[in-house]
């Protein structure tokens, strides 16, 4: 996964409905997003996960019983 640029990061925040100042975006990007992005990479497991690997939460028909 390509690393997200600060301008792309700002665009995602705006798309989500957050109207932030440049200073706020800068702080979120440099302080929070970079380690957060490393976590996103971590759970992708380098693309080595079997294609059919199930998530922890799957729909159960028992929920409708």
């Amino acid at each position, binding site marked *: 996964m390509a690393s*997200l640029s600060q301008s792309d*990061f700002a665009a*995602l*925040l705006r798309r*989500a*409905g*957050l*109207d*932030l100042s440049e200073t706020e975006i800068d*702080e*979120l990007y440099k*302080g*929070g*997003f970079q*380690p*957060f992005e*490393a*976590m*996103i990479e*971590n*759970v*992708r*497991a380098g693309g080595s*996960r079997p294609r059919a*690997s*199930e*998530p*922890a*939460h799957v729909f159960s028909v028992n*929920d409708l019983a």
Partner: protein
Amino acid sequence: MTPTIAEAARAIAARTLSPVELTRACLARIEARDPILHAFILRTPERALAEAGAAEARQMRRTLRGPLDGIPIGHKDIYATAGLPTTAHSRLLADHVPGSDAQTVAMLSGAGAVLMGKLATHEFAIGGPSFDLPWPPARNPWDPTRFTSGSSSGTGAAVADGMILGGTGSDTGGSIRGPAALCGIAGIKPTYGRCSRRGIVPLAFSLDHAGPLAWTAEDCALLLQAMAGHDPLDPASADVPVPDFSAGIGGSVQGLRIGVVRHFHERDNPATPACARAVEDSARVLAAGGAALREVTLPPLMDYQAANSLILQAEAWTLHEPWITTRFREYGEIMRSRLAMGAVMSAADYIQALRRRRELVAATRAGMAELELLLVAGAQSEAPPIDSVPKWTALGRPGFLAPFNLTGLPALSVCAGFGEGGLPVGVQVVGHAWQEPIVFRAGHVIERELAERGRRPQG
């Protein structure tokens, strides 16, 4: 000194302790200490005395409801309390007064516990310690310049200081066990599904656990007894039998097979000497009691932390989206900064985290296959200065607590001694799903040998 719940219950049953006098003593302690520690958001002294009076009447009639009858407790201010403000420590809910109790609040009330008030939390159980909210953050009674950890910060402070004998917390990434470790008390995150979440302000649906904090493991067992049970109105609540959580208290650990997870605190996130020593001291005590210990290796701590954090962020963003997009600056700075990360995740990121969760559950189960328990460090360090806590704590260094939110396994934090500056250090005892009684048994042994339960904060 404030008695434990077990001690007070015995004395109340024997009619040598008045619930009203016990409540008055706690109120006096709150009056003296809360202006420094800020554990309470709301105090309810009139209600407490009325409830204590009712307990005393039952005491006189010999119709006590059990060991919690007449015991002063407090609720983390994300637990709904009918007719009392439930703020989540946020200005967004400053005027919120629920019409009904959370299920666990009703259960504790039904057991006769006396409500002393509502306790400080991190904003919505994630944003803190914050100094820009309507109420200040709780402070550590062992040293009020220090952090309590969070988010069940008020409960940790109030219990450690003896203002209350026990209280409620919630744990999505460690929010019961963190304050337990840094405040030198006990706190259990029970098995996911053990306690109803209904009426508790949610943070992340699939990671939120309700549970108690108290001075000892034994007291946590007594509180959990009243909080546990199937709630058909909570979709995550499990319809499983509720055992006697106190059954093993005082019992032997002879023959228990326990895995010591050293790589978490030695390699993945190196702990201070005192926190590392607490693990070794606990291992020694358990071995001396006849347990069979061996080292066990689980997946890297960051694997657990990453999955837990991403699931938490996605679910928390979903919950807060209507407000954070319209009332962003009404949140505290820490809360809104942490929440904002959820805005930039994709659906695939969330699903990948859920896939990783399944893998980690399987790997943890395999690591525990021939063991009854794990012994894990409780915190990376003694309580740091309250003004030094970084805004993105969980993103920087993986904590020792999140693995058991992700896996849902029961995890008890107990005090295992004292470190730098006389500040407490804790360890975690982790069991298989639904095996809380064994967890309490081992936690009690560690506590009895290492925790110096006769030692309380001064002041």
